[in-house]
């Protein structure tokens, strides 16, 4: 499902060149739960951006569902993100002062999906994400951290994406809530979702079935737990 070959990424800031990725290759199959782990500056965020079609690599190839993503233009990348990828961010990134329902329905904006179906799918996604019932019309700023992250997970699920990309999803949560969120990911994985988790905490990475360690832009270890 995901096939990366020799991915490189170079950032240029004036005369200074930074090599964030120096040739990364791996496969991820459907239904896997992979944690990409590494200290800050290791290149894991860059890798996440490329896997999430938020950015394109400087070199190498990236196939997602047999489609070459590394050469797409801005609109095509949007299309890929829209159809194939569900994001969960560290800082939740919910729309401020907006209801839970509307936040979850955001990815369905400007599509042909009817209002009725949007709502039905949002409610279904919220149930999958373990969000308690009766909070549909609460405003995003009235939720607890754990609730916000579950809304974000529901938002990632609504388009039934091929992969869910979670970037430090527990970074802003306490230990107990982190466990709840990670169990949610495990449950989703057991239901067949492919999940890629980016983290710097080994403890969190332990929830995954496979751990890829990155250091200095290269894969250090790739182990199945």
């Amino acid at each position, binding site marked *: 499902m995901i096939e990366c070959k020799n991915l490189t990424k170079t950032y240029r800031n004036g005369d200074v060149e930074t090599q964030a990725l120096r040739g990364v290759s791996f496969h991820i199959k459907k239904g896997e739960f992979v944690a990409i782990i590494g200290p800050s500056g290791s290149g894991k965020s860059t890798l996440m*951006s490329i896997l*999430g079609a*938020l*950015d394109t690599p400087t070199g190498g190839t990236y196939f997602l569902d047999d489609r070459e993503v590394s050469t797409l233009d*801005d*609109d095509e990348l*949007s*299309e*890929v*993100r*829209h*159809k194939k*990828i569900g*994001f969960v*961010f560290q800082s939740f*990134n919910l*729309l*401020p*002062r*907006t209801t839970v329902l*509307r936040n979850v329905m*955001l*990815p369905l*904006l*400007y*599509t*042909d999906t009817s209002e009725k179906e949007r709502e039905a799918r949002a409610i279904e996604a919220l149930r999958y994400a373990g969000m308690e019932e009766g909070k549909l019309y609460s405003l995003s700023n009235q939720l607890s951290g754990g609730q916000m992250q579950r809304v974000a997970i529901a*938002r990632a699920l609504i*388009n039934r994406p091929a992969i869910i990309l979670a970037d430090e999803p527990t970074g802003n949560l306490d230990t107990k809530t982190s466990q709840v969120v990670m169990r949610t990911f495990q449950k989703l994985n057991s239901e067949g979702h492919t999940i890629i988790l980016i983290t710097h905490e080994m403890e969190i990475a332990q929830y995954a079935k496979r751990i890829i360690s990155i250091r200095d832009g290269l894969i250090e270890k790739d182990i199945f737990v």
Partner: protein
Amino acid sequence: MIITDILKEVFWSLSANKMRSGLTVLGIVIGIASVITMVSIGQGAKTSIEANIEAIGSNLIIITPGAQRGAAVSQGRGSAQTLIADDATAIRSEVQGIKALAPDTSRRYQITAKGKNTNTQVIGTVPEYLTVRNISMDIGSFFNERQIKTSEKVAVLGPSARDDLFGIHANPVGQTIRIGSSDFAIIGITKTKGGSGFSNPDNAVYVPITTVQHFLSGDEFLSSISVAAKDQGSMLAVQQQIETLLLRRHNITDKTQADFSILNQNDIISTASSITGTFTILLSSIAGISLLVGGIGIMNMMLTTVTERTREIGLRKAVGVKKRYINLQFLAEAIMLTVIGGVVGVVLGWLASLAVSRFAGLTTEVALSSVVMAFGVAAAVGIIFGFYPARRAANLSPIEALRYE
């Protein structure tokens, strides 16, 4: 689907930030309303002054005596006694293109009637005065040629003079008033005409010119001669003929030494127009400043709004919303804000103009050009500063936009 989605998004995002949207709209409203009101006051003043001047008469030329020159001291224009009834007769018989002509001799007198008294202008003139000065009768009639010949002691009152002497809307025809030491029978009341800026025809008493000469002033000198030209095109020719004729009659060879002056209504109008034009420019520049300040306010608000929402734009991009829909949404938001602000501003400015004319007694006139200009500037500022930064944010990579602090 897309259009309803955009409209819904616009509605939600504007109503989610009511305070911010409200303040942005307020900036636009104030800018537009102040421009419209200020310009309407200026325009109204211009129109009403012009109308007042027109109301004095149509195609009017007024000849007044010049300064009285003694050995070295000038007494000021109008003080001289250089115009006499024969001048008026000569103008009537020798100048071509005259429609009507009326000499008058005016002075202020204390007038009493039944215990009340007032001090007002007594105008001794001829029946043609009505034509020349566009005056019409309300009650009774004006005096006629026969009454002039016989120097009859009859008087026609202006409505204000009547109100002062007999009470508002009274009909005093048949009663008498005392001017100086003579009693005059009232034979008519003129219609209200409104102030003309120079003298108020409503607050005057009209009597036959010969009566004034015989019983009040005791001399033959005229205060002015009013001439109505046949049409606007002949005014200049009439004015020149009168000047030549009077110079000859008064034995003056040097024009600059003329002992009379001729005032052309067009000159008064153009002078007044230039004054009110200056006035309008003054008001418009004040309004322009408020529009500028309003514009900067809109700009500020829009820039803050968009900067604040860079992360939101990043999120929208991350979940796969295409750039053009993000652009469209922000453009629609900017348009919505400026349209709401614009419409409210126009209505408010218009209401303010009405209020000014109602409560401050100034005539106002809402000019379409000021509405268009104010609306255009506000809309342009709002749309440029709402759309341009949003476009820039939409062009950022989603990661950069998401990390934006």
